[in-house]
């Protein structure tokens, strides 16, 4: 009986810790790209304000930069789903 209870508690513990782990994985993976996308877009806006005639080229490069930076957060997002207890 006691053993059964202990097993059940352990199962719940694993489940809870998995949920915490998922949160940490995605939250951790979002920090860097968050800062990175902020830098990319901020600097792109500075460039566009300084040289409006180059706005088209800057915008294309900005989206490329966003795409490369964002990929890391998305890997974290996918990993959070892959983790299972």
């Amino acid at each position, binding site marked *: 009986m006691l053993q059964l209870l202990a097993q059940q508690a352990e199962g719940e513990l694993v489940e809870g810790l998995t949920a915490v782990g998922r949160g940490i994985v995605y939250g951790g993976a979002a920090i860097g790209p968050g800062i990175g996308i902020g830098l990319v877009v901020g600097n792109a806006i500075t460039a566009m304000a300084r040289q409006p005639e180059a706005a*088209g*080229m800057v915008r*294309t490069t900005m*989206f*490329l930069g*966003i*795409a*490369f930076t*964002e*990929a890391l957060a*998305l*890997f974290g*997002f*996918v990993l959070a*789903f892959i983790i299972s207890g």
Partner: protein
Amino acid sequence: MILGLEFPPISHVTEWPTWFGSGPFAVNKVVFLMWVSVALVFGFLYIGGRQQALVPRGVQNAAEVTVDFVQDSIILQTIGPDGLGFTPFLLTLFTFVFTCNIWEIVPGVQMPVNARIALPAFMAVLVWFIYHTVGIASQGPFRYFKSAVFPPGVPWYAMWLVAPIEFAQILIVRPLSLAVRLFANMIAGHLLLVSFAVITQALFEATIVGAALPFALLIALTAFEVLVAFLQAYIFTILAAVYIGGAMHPEH
């Protein structure tokens, strides 16, 4: 009493029952939507390309705007004028990815085809084959891999660090990130919409007034997902163009 919120498990919002067929040839809602997208893209471009009115109207107008967009803001910005031969491929890629994405917000359908990894993965592998083929064809196999793996301008003492990274990048990281970027964006948007729909429904049963805020957010997020669907199609195409351009013109 705490309001219980029954949240559907992720398998319930992305997996669909098989209609007919079995194994790898099973046809369900997602596969059917993919076929519909193929038919829509083909019909759109075929009708738009067949009409040749001097003043474009209707479908022809929309098709010409799309071609102009792909040529001006994707190909000319990344590959240059000699990449215009890739217009058919990149145009098809862009329209197909966008059509597959936009199912996310079509009422009654609401399932982006790209929220299953199969289609993004296949398109990423296709792009992978194409840029390697272009690189080998335009530079020759030896020069292509040399310029891709050993980028010029890197000092020799940093090469042992740069070369493995570049090697892994052109072989694994590029197609993987291309597929995962599209897939994760679409599934994240889908889950977001599902979450707000579930919250709205649960609050609607409890208090009608309380449901107003999540419902307003649901509408706003639906509009946001239109932007995401377009942006992801754009980014997928532009990255394919960048990879093809990088294979055509080595850095020097």
